[in-house]
């Protein structure tokens, strides 16, 4: 009964058991019968018995924190620089854009060596290198070297490699082509058509960035690389999400489009940019998803993916080893000033003479940052998908059920997605149109079946 949830959708309930991979739409009497049958371990109405049988069978294990020695790192993260060649009006990165240090090639090689030594010692056959920034390609020689060197070491060890980067796309075509040739996945920040992109993401001298970034997106579209377009949505652009989606289908070939809401920052406030209303975001996310889906493009909101069950939202806690330009090894690619502001220490070690010197206690502390340690999420049906979201930017220390705007949009988008998965697309669309009905669904303090008042 523990991880069986029921969420009101108009006059019905969405029954959701993520660990049993079960989603069903039931009415109130059926939900009550189901709950009673599960509680009493008694037979149910024949129509409900298959559901009861599924829920009584063992589900997948509850996602828990990692334990044991560090043998299976999620990936090697390389931050070649914190610098950036853009001046996004909402940027929440406090690092200096022009004068940030660049990772030395020696340090980059040490990081790759340390990673492969770890993989080889653990008998791993797969490896991944992810690049973050600032803008990682502002220190492109480090990237060019790491990719070739990691491929070289991977061939020595018979390890299959993947390369992924998060990038702003502001570089010459030949640079984009090299990325397209050598990377498996590129997450490209592109907020929409020219007027949106140029208003949100200008260059430091105030010039438009759209033309160059769109050219990069076209290069990535035409290449084998998996392109993920990441669009930041504001109060001003939320109503244009379907239009942005249609534009993307017309211009590019991404595998997925990731819509994320603006994170408030001093710079965003200075430019009077605000996050969208969560209900409007969910409504337009669903509309955009239908447009993109018709073209085989997946629509993603990072906290609302139901693809798998997880104990932590991001690389934090999953043994990612993210190396910064000065050689520190962290669990998170955000700035340490940002973690500290949130009362976290995500530093787990340092590169030392070509080896990872990992502090065991620090690693265990970071691994313990799971959804089980986030009170706000205790009774939410999204707990094994959202898992509380970003450890740094989403405060989940509140009481269970006191959902904030990020929770509300996650809950609504997840609900709409689950309804569509079981063929209830029309209901999902109609329910999302009804703000009051959505408020009831999103505002239910506990989704646990055992605590549903109606039952």
């Amino acid at each position, binding site marked *: 009964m523990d991880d069986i949830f029921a969420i009101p959708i108009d006059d019905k309930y969405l029954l959701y058991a993520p660990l049993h991979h079960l989603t069903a739409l039931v009415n109130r009497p059926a939900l009550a019968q189901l709950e009673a049958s599960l509680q009493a371990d008694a037979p149910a109405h024949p129509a409900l018995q298959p559901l009861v049988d599924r829920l009584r069978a063992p589900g997948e294990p509850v996602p828990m924190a990692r334990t044991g020695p560090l043998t299976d790192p999620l990936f090697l993260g390389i931050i070649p620089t914190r610098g950036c060649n853009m001046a996004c009006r909402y940027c929440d990165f406090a690092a200096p854009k022009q004068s940030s240090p660049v990772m030395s090639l020696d340090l980059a090689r040490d990081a790759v060596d340390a990673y492969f030594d770890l993989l080889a010692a653990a008998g791993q056959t797969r490896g991944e290198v992810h690049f973050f920034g600032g803008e990682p390609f502002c220190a492109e020689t480090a990237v060019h070297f790491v990719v070739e060197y990691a491929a070289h070491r991977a061939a020595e060890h018979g390890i299959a490699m993947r390369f992924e980067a998060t990038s702003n796309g502001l570089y010459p075509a030949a640079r984009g*082509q090299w990325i397209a040739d050598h990377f498996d996945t590129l997450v490209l920040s592109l907020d929409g058509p020219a007027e949106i992109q140029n208003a949100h993401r200008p260059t430091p001298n105030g010039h438009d960035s759209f033309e160059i970034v769109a050219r990069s997106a076209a290069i990535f*579209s*035409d290449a*084998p690389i*998996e392109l993920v377009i990441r669009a930041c949505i504001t109060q001003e652009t939320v109503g244009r999400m379907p239009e942005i989606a249609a534009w993307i289908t017309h211009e590019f*070939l991404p*595998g997925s489009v990731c819509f994320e809401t603006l994170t408030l920052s001093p710079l965003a406030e200075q430019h009077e940019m605000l996050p969208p209303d969560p209900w409007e975001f969910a409504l337009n996310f669903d509309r955009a998803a239908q447009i993109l889906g*018709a*073209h*085989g493009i997946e629509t993603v909101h990072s906290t609302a993916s139901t693809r798998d069950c997880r104990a932590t939202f991001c690389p934090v806690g999953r043994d990612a080893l993210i190396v910064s330009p000065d050689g520190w090894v962290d669990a998170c690619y955000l700035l340490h000033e940002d973690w500290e502001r949130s009362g976290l220490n995500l530093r787990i070690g340092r590169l030392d003479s070509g080896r990872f010197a990992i502090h065991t206690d620090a690693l265990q502390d970071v691994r313990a940052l799971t959804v089980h340690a986030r009170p706000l999420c205790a009774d939410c049906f999204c707990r094994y998908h959202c898992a509380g979201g970003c450890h740094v930017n989403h405060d989940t220390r509140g009481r269970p059920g006191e959902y904030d705007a990020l929770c509300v949009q996650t809950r609504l988008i997840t609900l709409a997605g689950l309804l569509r998965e079981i063929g209830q697309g029309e209901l999902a669309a109609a329910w999302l149109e009804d703000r009051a009905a959505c408020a009831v669904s999103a505002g239910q303090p506990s989704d646990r079946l055992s605590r549903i008042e109606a039952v």
Partner: protein
Amino acid sequence: MQTAIGDHAQTFITLDTFEARLDALDRSGIDEIRLIGGEPTLHPQFPALIERARRRGKHLVVFTHGLISERALAVLEAIPVDACTILVNTNASRHIDGPTPDEQARRRAVLLRLGARALPGFTIDTPGAALDFLLSLALETGCQPKIRLGLAQPILSGRNRYLHPKQYPLVGQPIARFAQAAAQYGITVELDCGFVRCMFSETELEMLHAAGVETAWRCSPILDVGIDGTIMHCFSLGSRVVLRPTDSATATDLRAALADQVRPYRAAGIYKACSSCSFKLTGACTGGCLSATLQRFRASPAPRLVVPEEVLGI
């Protein structure tokens, strides 16, 4: 061997040239002629072309969009059922957004008249392509119990709308499901050239085989003969891979010569992984459409490298 008898510039093959093409087929021992275009039924002497091919005893395959004149339809209707296959592309349209209801109604009427002469085809150019209408079309018009599916391929020297190889896996499942549904009605799906094995999961491959779909992951010279006599590898490669025929060349010679022209590029395929894929290395899959493969190749890197003379031993 396919013979173009009209093109977009509205030039048409002459009857004498057409006779020469028939001679070439005779020389190669080929008893089938395939008429392609443009739209072959637009040829002003279409009845005469059909009549000459028939006189030589050739089985006729006509590639048409199906939106054809009454005159051309009457000519096709007069061909015995076992002497021809009229391949009707059901998603050709005058409109960029695809066929209008009027166009589909006209095509349906044409298929009804052609009956078992006709074989409906559909070229998939978007992951969201709806295929189900083909079943009712095939069942209600009495055409051959087959449906030919193609993948829209890039035309190497043009800018047509095509399905990018990245999108192939997205259509794998719909095709397998469609083939399964078609098989329940005794209709077999035929896959055109350019399909690749890895666009289907193992389950989907089993579904295809159970539905009687022949899977040959192929791309080879088709021998399209242009109006000017130029022999092309295929429509997609257009004028980029061509031969000038000689009087004595047979189809086998021409295929070998065209294959030679493109041999160095065959090491690669439509995906980065093709050249190291066991299915390609063993010849079980050609690695997709050569035109899509050639699109991946780039011109020489422009940058210069300035080096000390001593490095080169100069």
